[in-house]
């Protein structure tokens, strides 16, 4: 505390020795200002895909060489334009403990049902959606949701489903199943959901 007061004294002492410098009276030069920024919102999408791709980062042509012990890669986003059905596997939603992406044994049968369906319907695929409750920050949750989806995907692959039939996506905490704030709501939100994908009609 004394040191702080001392500093003020020193500033004053210094000020007295340099008083009077740069002292001009009256308003000085006029400063013209730039006009405001007018951002442009990208135009509404038409019937085609208006978004150009850089061509290098859409996954096409990317080698996904597998190293021993590596989980199966996902290559490029598959199943664009496939029909989606969120009802088929609604009862198979998997749930997770807080801050965890470990599949619980109680959910083993849920995942197995999905695998069985895919084995019987070889043309179909599935997207696993990972979700989190609100008790986490946004990007941490986005990554955790993806880890949950990946854990489910690994299990499906172990059960014999080819990796190119299983897509993952994470919504972080953006799409709660229950918008409440209780522990019960949180539990419902920490989940992995299955969306059945069917090839577009030819």
């Amino acid at each position: 505390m004394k040191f702080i007061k001392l500093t003020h004294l020193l500033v004053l002492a210094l000020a007295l020795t340099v008083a009077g410098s740069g002292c001009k009276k009256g308003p000085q030069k006029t400063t013209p200002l730039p006009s405001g920024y007018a951002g442009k919102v990208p135009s509404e999408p038409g019937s085609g895909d208006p978004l150009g791709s850089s061509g290098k980062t859409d996954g096409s042509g990317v080698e996904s060489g597998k190293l021993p012990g590596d989980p199966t890669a996902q290559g490029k986003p598959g199943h664009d334009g496939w029909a989606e059905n969120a009802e088929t596997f609604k009862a198979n939603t998997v749930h997770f403990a807080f801050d965890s992406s470990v599949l619980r044994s109680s959910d083993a049968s849920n995942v197995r049902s999905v695998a069985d369906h895919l084995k019987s319907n070889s043309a179909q695929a599935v997207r696993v959606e990972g979700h989190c409750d609100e008790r986490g920050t946004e990007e941490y949750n986005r990554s955790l949701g993806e880890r949950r989806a990946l854990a489910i995907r690994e299990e499906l692959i172990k059960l014999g489903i080819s990796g190119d039939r299983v897509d993952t996506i994470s919504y972080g905490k953006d799409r709660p199943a229950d918008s409440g704030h209780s522990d019960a709501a949180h539990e419902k939100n920490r989940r992995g959901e299955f969306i059945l994908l069917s090839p577009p009609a030819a």
Partner: protein
Amino acid sequence: MKKNPLLLTIACVSTIFSTSLHGQITITQETAPGGAKPVLVNLSGISGEAAQVIQFDLYVQGFAFTNADAAQYLISGSNNGNLQARVSDRFNKSTVVAKAYSGASLRRQAHVFVDDFVQAIGRKGIAQTKIAFKGKTGKGSEIFLADFDGFSAVGVTKDGNLVAAPSMISGELAMYYVSYKLNHADIFYQNLTSGSRKIFARYGGSNLSPAVSPDGRKVAMILSKDGWAELYVCDADGSDLVRLTKSKEDESSPCWSPDGKWICFATKQSNQRRTLCKIPSSGGSPQPISTGGVPSPTEPDWSPDGKWIAFTAQFGKSFQIYVVPAAGGAGTSLVEGEDPSWAPNSRTLAFARRNGGSGDYVLSLLDVPTKQYKDVSRLSGSNSQSQPSWAR
């Protein structure tokens, strides 16, 4: 044993007088974050919106308003149509700023004036900077860009879907962000001047958390295309993709050191405890950054002067903004909030504050040295604004 204060005074004063013969000395005080007192100012003669701007802009840079006889800086002037403003330094008996402004709006003139003032006393100005953020709109969310005080927000996207994690490119009106518009978590690049955009990363799995390097040449991001949520880096045109981490744990929210040599990110140690790590941006082994026992650090941001890493810590259901020295060490708690983003002045942070128990956020600005903070102007038509990215 107490030092004799009188002797100390004599010693210091004699030092002052001797060095003043050789030129100015700068008295700086390295204070711990949150340990500084605000610089006291007084405002008179200026009213209405111009006064509001001056008060807000200075408060979030560590100034506080008080009586004229207690203030160091006296701000006076008028705002009939245009702003005329003068700042005098009561301690040093000098005029710091004396200007008349014209053009644009009164609001913008006031921002320029604040910049003129803080720059005249040796600080970096932030009053004309912008912040990108995510705003909830109806069922989805869009990216917005606004003045740093929340005014004049413009929509960057209008996709009616979900977005996340804007990352402004330094010195440009351009950014990267995540959009779910194509039914997938993809990273886009968008030029705000032309409005044109392109897909930047659309690998299989999810493409998350883009972070552009300070020199704009590289982008770090979290990709799950190889089966785990890992940290990758590539050139700004998308080429030369390199995988930096190889761990079963999910990495998240990368940020860059100001010299571009390191990427700091959140991950978990093998014992499942969350930690911050840094890794050479050209590849190498990740090194944990100690936060002095502060739990669950996430969403780091490295200050532009290289000295501090701000991050979010989680205590049960509560989130706190912390800073830690960039080399690691004891973390300092600053304010309840999440997802900090440094201003170019390395002292003001934008962050998101949970608005009651609703799960919605408001954006707020914190002055780290004084812990003063104030919410920015809210976006009309949106009940939640979060994930700020300060345009540096």
